[in-house]
């Protein structure tokens, strides 16, 4: 259905969200799919601009601290964060090392949906993975470097 998307667009309009904030909200919505690689890549590139970086962090922080019913917001914000830690600016790494407890305390996230399914498990696993990544300086460096290399190669092939 198109309704949630339309509602979100209306909300983005009435609350006066900027383009960047809307993009992050879109990528971390309650829809059952996504975020797409294209969406995440676009947001990761935005973090290289100081103003956009602040807006991305603020919107992501809101999503990460959302309530259980909106577990998809939390899960997708973690997915987006994982992507940005690999492909975004160094500032993302610094910001989340500083605020690691936001991710760390999601390791016991609990939410059981109407069907009795423990959907919190997805959040818990992702929170564990990202915490480990943030605490492993060498691995994070290597993964960021190889991601950068791949991007350069791909851009090189396109040129």
């Amino acid at each position: 259905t198109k309704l949630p998307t339309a509602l979100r667009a209306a909300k983005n309009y009435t609350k006066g969200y900027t383009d960047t904030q809307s993009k992050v909200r879109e990528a971390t919505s309650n829809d059952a799919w996504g975020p797409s690689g294209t969406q995440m890549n676009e947001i990761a590139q935005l973090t290289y601009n100081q103003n956009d970086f602040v807006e991305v962090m603020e919107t992501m922080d809101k999503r990460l601290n959302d309530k259980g019913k909106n577990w998809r917001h939390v899960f997708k914000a973690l997915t987006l964060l994982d992507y940005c830690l690999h492909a975004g600016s160094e500032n993302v790494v610094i910001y989340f090392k500083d605020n690691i407890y936001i991710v760390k305390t999601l390791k016991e996230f609990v939410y059981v949906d109407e069907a009795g399914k423990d959907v919190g498990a997805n959040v818990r696993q992702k929170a564990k993975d990202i915490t480990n990544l943030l605490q492993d300086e060498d691995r994070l460096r290597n993964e960021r470097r190889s991601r950068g290399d791949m991007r350069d190669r791909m851009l090189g092939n396109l040129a």
Partner: protein
Amino acid sequence: TPTRPVDKEKTETELTQNIKKATSAEETAPKQKHVRKCIVYTWDYHSSLPVWNGLRTQPILADEVQTFKALIVVHKLLQEGHPVTLKEAHAQTGWVETCGRTVGDAGKGYGSLIKAYTSFILSKLRFHRHHPEFNGLFEYEEYISLKNIDDPNEGYETITDLMTLQDQIDSFQKLIFAAFRGSANNECRISALVPLVKESFGIYKFITSMLRAMHRRTDAEDAMSPLRERYNAQHFNLRRFYYECSNLKYLTGLINVPKLGQEPPNLIDSGEAPEIP
């Protein structure tokens, strides 16, 4: 001030609500979303005082379930809060003692658990007062790099203190298992096992790496033998504890319960360190 976008006034109003809800009278686990807000508060503002004040002013002591839940909150706060939480907790021991003394008993059988929990928390605080280099979950790989020393005498004392704490966890967990009610919902009791599993494993890993380091640095293998014996006994106790936990679906849903090997790790060879859950 935090680098996160926060609203201090709003957070403090919500904090009171979070504490109230985390220590509600329902016989369930303290809701993690509320406990999380308390933990996050200490990191955002580098202070745990509003949380302690909130706990002290809640009317929880007349109800055994509420008191027990408050102690779980305290334990998690000590483990995962900002390091200042452990320091500020020393001024709160009077209140913790009061929790153990004024047990409201509605016949749900939490009285002995509350007493045991308060004495465990007080021991934990004593440990941290004597060894301020440790964090609440003992999350370090190497003793030597932590202390930047290799004084075997001091190491010996630290290990002994850690082992004493480990023994206390073991008797407390046994008490919790013994308090399970056959057909009833044991969620509230089980939720107290979560921080105990984490803490015991942190201590276990730490003792393992510390004993290995000490064996590398001293030739006095004989002098170390009482520690090795105690270590082996604790390994078997812990193994049984984790095995029993692994049968509790509610608990394994929340955390990975470590699985220890049949035999204690070799302390003299520098073998593989135990896996992190």
